């Protein structure tokens, strides 16, 4: 789990966000702009639908910091795929602004947009989106070819990424000659070929069977540790979200219900919808010691690491008799968490 060390507020202070979305709307229908302009504030998803429009994205404001992995999570039709396509302007938004590195991409002309995608963005698709008539090598080299890199350069770079995703030896294969997992490795390699700053992954592992999915998640975490990209990752699988995310944004009917670290979503669900989602989750496996720390407490004994999950501390929590347990934070400071609260998480009666 990665969530514990991460403090989005800290990063936000030191750096402008890579992606910054403000009051973004995406409506589908006959005349979305005119409708949005005339729509009374606070219209619900159903009211909008009665007027003949579908709110793909409904008033979303969200920021993604450099090096952060934001997982957008929701059921199908909740607007998560639409939102991520707004970030890359595969969809033109109906209202609001989206800035990438401080630049409003809505104002980009076609050439600027193409340059942005050629230099900064990579995307992985649920059903891979590979070009069937091209070999693995040609698929991976495709974005490089599009931006006009010369043949030798792009071959070298493509081979490098193919090795990175563990497909060496299959460069000459065609997509249909590969298994689903291998095809998605090609998709990942292709999205990394241009060394993007921002990496969009749209349910990349949903089409794979569970065993392969797990393996690919490990692989993905390995890559991310190595590359440290800014990532927007979409999934409908809460376990996957918890496993990968720095922060999770939970969407429903086009709107973001809650956007926070996994610990805090589990501990303090903001809405009834989120609470239902988190109900079945074993909180002790998600919540980290660092999150339960309270100011003004001092504990006794050996400090535990802030990144330890409550579950991994179960023995200590049960056996230790003190009221507070010392926690060593990521920056080295020693703080403490109340033992009763940690026990509560462990036993599942809430925090």
């Amino acid at each position, binding site marked *: 789990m990665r969530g514990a060390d991460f403090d989005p507020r800290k990063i936000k202070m030191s750096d402008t966000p890579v992606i910054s979305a403000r009051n973004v709307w995406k409506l589908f229908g006959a005349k979305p702009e005119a409708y949005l302009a005339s729509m009374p504030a606070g219209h619900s998803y159903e009211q909008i639908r009665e007027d003949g429009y579908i709110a793909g994205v409904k008033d979303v404001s969200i920021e993604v910091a450099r090096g952060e992995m934001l997982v957008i999570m929701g059921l199908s039709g909740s607007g998560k795929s639409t939102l991520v396509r707004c970030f890359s302007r595969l969809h033109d938004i109906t209202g609001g602004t989206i800035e990438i590195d401080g630049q409003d991409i809505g104002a980009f002309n076609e050439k600027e947009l193409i340059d942005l*995608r050629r230099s900064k963005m990579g*995307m992985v698709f649920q059903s891979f989106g590979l070009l069937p*008539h091209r070999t693995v090598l040609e698929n991976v080299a495709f974005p490089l070819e*599009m931006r006009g890199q010369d043949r030798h350069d792009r071959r070298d770079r493509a081979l490098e990424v193919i090795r990175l995703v563990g497909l060496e030896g299959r460069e000459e294969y065609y997509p249909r000659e590969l298994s689903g997992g291998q095809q998605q490795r090609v998709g990942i390699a292709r999205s990394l070929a241009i060394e993007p700053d921002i990496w969009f992954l749209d349910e990349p592992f949903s089409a794979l069977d569970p065993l392969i999915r797990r393996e690919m998640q490990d692989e993905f975490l390995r890559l991310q540790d190595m590359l440290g990209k800014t990532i927007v990752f979409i999934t409908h699988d809460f376990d996957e979200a918890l496993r990968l995310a720095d922060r999770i944004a939970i969407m429903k009917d086009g709107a973001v219900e809650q956007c926070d670290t996994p610990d805090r979503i589990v501990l303090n669900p903001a809405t009834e919808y989120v609470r239902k989602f988190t109900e079945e989750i074993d909180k002790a496996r998600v919540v980290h010691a660092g999150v339960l720390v309270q100011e003004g407490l001092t504990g006794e004994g050996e400090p535990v690491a802030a990144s330890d999950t409550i579950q991994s501390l179960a023995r200590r929590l049960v056996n230790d008799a003190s009221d507070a347990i010392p926690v060593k934070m990521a920056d080295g400071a020693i703080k403490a968490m109340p033992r009763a609260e940690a026990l509560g998480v462990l036993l599942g009666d809430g925090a």
Partner: protein
Amino acid sequence: MTDAVAHPPPSEPRAGLSTRARVLIGLFGAAVILTLLRPFLPDALIRVPEWAIPPLEPALDAIFAWFQNDLGLIHVTRAISGWLGVAIDAAANLLYGKSRWPRLDALPWSAVAGVAAVLGWWLGGWKLSLLAGGTFVWTALMGQWKWTMETMSVIVIAAPVSFVIGLILGISAWKWKRFERAIRPILAILQTLPFYTYLLPAVIFFKVGPTAASVATIVYAMPPMILMTAVGLKKVPPEVVEAGKMAGCTRWQMLTRVFIPSARSEILVGLNQVIMLSLAMVVLTAFIGMPGLGAKLLAMMNSFKLGRSFEIGITIVLLAITLDRLSKAWVVKQPEHFEKGTPWWQRHFFLVLGIATFVFFLLVAQVVPYLDEIGRRQAFSMGKEIDTAMKTALAWDWVQATTNGIRYFFNLFILIPTENALLYVPTFAVIAAVAGICYALGGAQPAIIGAVFFTTVAFFGWWDRAMLTLHSTVTAVLLAVLIGMPIAIWASRSARASRGAIFVCDTAQTFPSFIYLLPAIMLFGISPITVILSILIYTMVPVIRYTIEGLRGVPVELTEAADMAGATRWQKLKNVQLPLAMPTIAVGLNQALMFAFFMVIIAAFIGTRDIGQELQRTLAGTHLGKNFVLGFSVVFMALTFDIAINAWAERRRRALGLA
């Protein structure tokens, strides 16, 4: 053909009669009353009188003349004809040694056959290799090389041109909605336009011969290419498109690197269609003086040389199957990777082999003249012998008795009475009946369209001939259904028989329509039955094919449910399988009718009295106006059925939850 299940229950049970029933009674009642009252009606109500027929033909002629001369269209067409002429002459020079640029003289037949065999091997293994090579070997051995190459020289130019223009128009249709909306009806008309109507403008603008033939062929073969391209481009998965955009493709890169390669299958299916339609049309352009297989076949059939006709027929069929299989094999051929370090010649094995074969035969043919060209005396044609054998067989008493009996029976008891009956009915009674049929099938809109179309035909002024055309068409299709449906129902009972029958039908559908006249002429000579029989054979193919497809497409659970409910085979067929298969069968029926309208016009050269005959006569002159009026008479009749049947199938499909 409508049963109670087919339609929503009456909306107004109160009055006892629904609107629907009242409209139907009104329309059919009017038809019957008008027919019964015929002896008392004034002439003007029986047929549209001469004076009421608008002078469309001279008007159209004037318009065409204006386009041609005042607008200078003739210069454009002359320029096109110049370029096409050079290309066709070059192909003709290479294929059969016509003395034109580049003056390289004909390629040896063995080299062409060898390359065809290699191509077949590359695309589909040894069987296809044998078929492709064998076709050309047969052609050469039979002494038909020159005619075949005359035909091929137009195809190799017309098909690529049609492909490229069709591709461009297809891309435009996909890109611009408005363009698509504009060309859709035009394509529908082009696909039902009798082929004579393609021929005359071609002749007028491009003169008699290969150039006009290739222009007619290019236009004729194009519509499916446009449609397939648009369909294929629309079907490219959204994620592939997005992947292209995310890779930073420009619009041109999107089109050439993402869309067109991803739509490869559909585009190649379009190419297959282009090639097959080109072949069909090139054979037919015999009517405007295009030499080649078609012209020879026409000449042989006209002089009743059955043996030679038969041999040419086989060549045409072999050519059709070869071209079809080769292009279809290309559709399904998927790229395969080579292991690393595969040497160059192995990666391009077939290219190397093809070139080697070509060069080999080119050289050997210099030494062995037999491999270069097979003269008439060296050929293995058995035309005379087959001719004699066939004529002897047909003259056997029992054969002759049978064919004469059939001819007599059909003429006397079916064709002549129904024909006279149809000609007796007043024009407006026919229109009312057609509207009634359309209303029963598809509702108000098709009924109105049908009425308007048939009224237009009436005012075109060729009503009796139109009725004769309609008569042959409908009779033949009804017979095709009567014979074809039981065959299809029988075949659909086993998976193997179904596969076999569909294979035969698919193969038969690739034959140029001209071929279907051959057996009919052999059996019945020149008579009205021949026309009906050729249409019958031709239209039975779609009837059988779609009936089998429909019946086999019924979900297994449903037939199992019927079995478990204790249905007998007949009950199951009647209550479960046929109702569910009907929308598909309707598609087949519709295709059968369209084919029939096509065939009945071709059959005109046998000597009919219908629109086709008049159309064929226009070819001799320059009466474009008359040609178009006649052509559109056929288009309007065909489209009426097309629209009504499609509306019916669509409604059924929706009612069954299949759409």
